[in-house]
């Protein structure tokens, strides 16, 4: 081993400029997300949706009601939040858990930049694995009758943004982010959201459906939340979750192994 250059006196430590995106952080996050076992679930759920759509069409003719049931019930109600959990928590949680995040944090890169970049990657992965399959399945199910396929795909994309921000936050707050994410996705969104009227108002799924309702033909997609309220809540949730995740990362401490 040998070194070549002598140490020069350091310049004063300036704070790095905050940017919205760092390509290296994005590459590491993307490869971590798609290189682990969780990638199997990312691929499995959309595949299941498409297979289900093909099976339904093989057994019956195109039907808006059946399409609404599958796209609204299975896709928006279960698949999108689950993919959000996998991508959102997976974008940062494992690195914090195993300590490898130290290689990102020990760099002159703003921690806000790290959070923004990871959010963009989580959104991209969630949209790719939820919105596109929803669109594809919608066309298979009823040929985009009443703009249902597009409406549900837009709703899935909108939900992907909010879920990514929310579950990314979970990843910075707790070591049990996946558990909390699953409880939220399956208990709150899929169960409580369908049974308790109040819970529907505080459901990302319902906010996203309000946007999808606007895109699709009248009555094709329904939501329990008015569009202006839904948009405000979506923006507020995404902004607050991202801001707080950045704050958590700035104050992240790595306790010793002693």
């Amino acid at each position, binding site marked *: 081993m040998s070194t070549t250059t002598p140490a020069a*006196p350091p310049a004063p430590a300036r704070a790095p400029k905050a940017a919205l995106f760092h390509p*290296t952080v994005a590459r590491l996050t993307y490869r971590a997300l798609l290189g682990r076992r969780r990638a199997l679930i990312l691929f499995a759920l959309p595949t299941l949706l498409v297979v289900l759509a093909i099976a339904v069409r093989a057994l019956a003719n195109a039907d808006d009601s059946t399409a609404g049931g599958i796209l609204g019930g299975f896709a928006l109600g279960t698949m999108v939040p689950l993919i959000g959990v996998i991508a959102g928590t997976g974008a940062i949680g494992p690195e914090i858990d195993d300590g490898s995040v130290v290689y990102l944090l020990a760099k002159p890169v703003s921690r806000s930049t790290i959070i923004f970049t990871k959010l963009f990657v989580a959104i991209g992965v969630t949209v790719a694995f939820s919105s596109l399959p929803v669109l594809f399945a919608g066309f298979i199910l009823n040929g985009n009758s009443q703009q249902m396929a597009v409406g549900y795909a837009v709703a899935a994309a909108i939900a992907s943004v909010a879920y990514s921000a929310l579950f990314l936050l979970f990843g910075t707050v707790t070591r049990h982010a996946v558990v909390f994410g699953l409880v939220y996705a399956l208990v709150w969104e899929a169960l409580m959201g369908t049974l308790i009227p109040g819970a529907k108002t505080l459901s990302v799924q319902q906010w996203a459906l309000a946007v999808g309702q606007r895109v699709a033909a009248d009555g094709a997609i329904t939501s329990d939340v008015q569009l202006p309220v839904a948009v405000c809540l979506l923006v507020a949730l995404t902004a607050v979750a991202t801001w707080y995740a950045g704050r958590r990362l700035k104050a992240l401490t790595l306790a*010793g192994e002693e």
Partner: protein
Amino acid sequence: MTHISIDHVSRWFGNVVAVNDITMTIGPGVTGLLGPNGAGKSTLINMMGGFLAPSNGSVTLDGTTIWRNAGIYRHIGIVPEREAMYDFLTGREFVLANAELHGLGRAEAARALATVEMEYAQDRKISTYSKGMRQRVKMASALVHDPSVLLLDEPFNGMDPRQRMQLMELLRQMGDQGRTVLFSSHILEEVEQLASHIEVVVAGRHAASGDFRKIRRLMTDRPHRYLVRSDNDRALAGALIADPSTAGIEVDLAEGALRVQAVDFGRFTELLPRVARDHGIRLLTVSPSDESLESVFSYLIAA
């Protein structure tokens, strides 16, 4: 010249005090942070690396606060103790990613890999590396931006003797170049072989600072042991035991020497040659038998 200053720093986790009112300055050259497991070494290094806020006191790099200051990483390279890396990357991809995060590129990554002699395995995935190879790639990632400060937490763990010597030589060179190199260890011989300066931490407290032999001598309230050979051991023993600076003498027949326990280092070092001269005794060997870091360490822990 880059200095890390730790000023009256304490850190507690709940009711547990990990670091207790420590003040020290780490300057250019190689400094060993020595202490048993659980002494607070990693906590100190995490605070110096900006990954832990002190509960009390301040940790600064040339006067600039380290905590919540990402700008300091332009000057600091960190080799963490934890094994976890981006195992799905190759060594080259990993070091390149670290270079890019510093705004650097392939040339700097290649130079850092060459410095730790890992070019031969740079295209293998990190998941296939041995512990020593992982340690060297971690070193490369810390050196990629040519930092003036290098912090290493137990860097020799898992390395074979050859790799250990290579890393020691590298750290020695970096210290000679005027960089501030701090490494933690609980292995005394590592520190003894490498560090020009040591900081000893025991049970969260700063137990000692400086050259390890000086530290040993500063502890005048502790007995010092010497192995002494002369041409008349018994006469020498009788003369030495009469002085209060000598607490005990054992005639070691097997070694053919005296084992002397002195309680006043300064006085004893003046006494021994004077007594020998006055009694016409020729001293053949005078060697401290407990100046290894091991003995320094055990005294400090017991103190």
